């Protein structure tokens, strides 16, 4: 039972780490603000989500699990808002040019 949980953890956290890596590479390599934001939100949403999903089997209690999930939800909310704000500012500058 504990082996199965550990396998789920390793698989999901590794997948999350992969999305963080891919998001960082995209952030460094993509040509403009909007595509860079696209790369960044993949790391935030999927990467963090998979890491939280992987940590859930290791959480000692339902309380700890709910805390982990709420961290992911708050991360989603913050990430989505900030990327919207940055994207709008970027587009306004582009149309002003």
């Amino acid at each position: 039972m504990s082996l199965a949980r550990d396998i789920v953890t390793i698989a999901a956290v590794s997948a999350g780490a992969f999305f963080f890596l891919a998001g960082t590479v995209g952030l460094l390599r993509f040509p403009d603000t909007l595509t860079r934001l696209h790369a960044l939100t993949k790391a935030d949403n999927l990467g963090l989500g998979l890491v939280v999903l992987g940590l859930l089997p290791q959480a000692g209690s339902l309380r700890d699990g709910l805390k982990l999930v709420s961290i992911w939800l708050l991360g989603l909310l913050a990430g989505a808002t900030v990327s919207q704000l940055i994207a709008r500012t970027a587009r306004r500058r582009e149309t002003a040019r």
Partner: protein
Amino acid sequence: MSIATLFEIVLVAVMLGLGIWTITVRETYSAAVGFIAYGLLVALIWVRLDAVDVALTEAAIGGGLSGVLLLGAAARLRGAEPRAATAPGKATRAAAAAVSVLTAAALATAVLLLPDSVPTLAPTVVANAWATSLANPVTNVLMAFRAMDTMLEKVVLLLAIIGVWSLASDNAWGGRPGPRHQADPQGILVFLARLLPPIGIVIGIYIFWTGANHPGGAFQGGAILASMWLLAVMAGLTDMPPVSSRWLRFVLVAGPGLFLLVGIFGLWLGPGFLAYPRTLAKPLILGIEVAMVLTIAATLGLLLAGAPERSVRR
């Protein structure tokens, strides 16, 4: 070498690299962003050292609030930067390098000369935890064993806010701090400012409340409450109160004032200044902390809002 050690070495290397980059980078704005990331890395290091209370404070104050202060300062300096870009002379640079090298050498010597068994009061703190019936040793030290320091710290916060206010121009004195923020009422910022504060206020109060027995406390909780207030102000949903308002000033002095009152109460009833009667220790500490979390939230919010800029129309 274990994975944890490897992670710590990488963490320290990244932190040192980021620190050097923050110092050497040209633009003030980039340096401020570097400093925020640096603060978050330092918080991670405190977590690795099992000092979660310090980590929370570092993330909230070192990474968050001082980061926002620095970003604001960078935005204000943007116009003045080209003029100030002239490089300092050779003598100034040599003097700065000499002072830096001497400071680093003195610090390194001090660390190398530390005695092998470092003197610590930690066992004494743990052994005397029963005196307050709080389980978090950090809260015990802050609120009971070294309560004097904490009280004076709150007075320093009060002095800081007076210092910021004194930068106001004569006709703005007593007015509202900072500009009136406007945001698109259908926009995403307003949406966040309506959605997040209910969650943030619960988390702020939780962090404060759990500080009695787990990492957390009035300062960390107060910082979260302050950021929720500032979010609502920045989205234009509410305005900063004028600094002359009576209730605002009452909230600002409530924390240190109640602390001082309880301290004098201890002088009168108990063995000395700031000594709590044993049976009342926990409720008294909790009462002081409730007043302090409000004071801290108001002070941090006002520190970020800056000096009064808009005079109150009469």
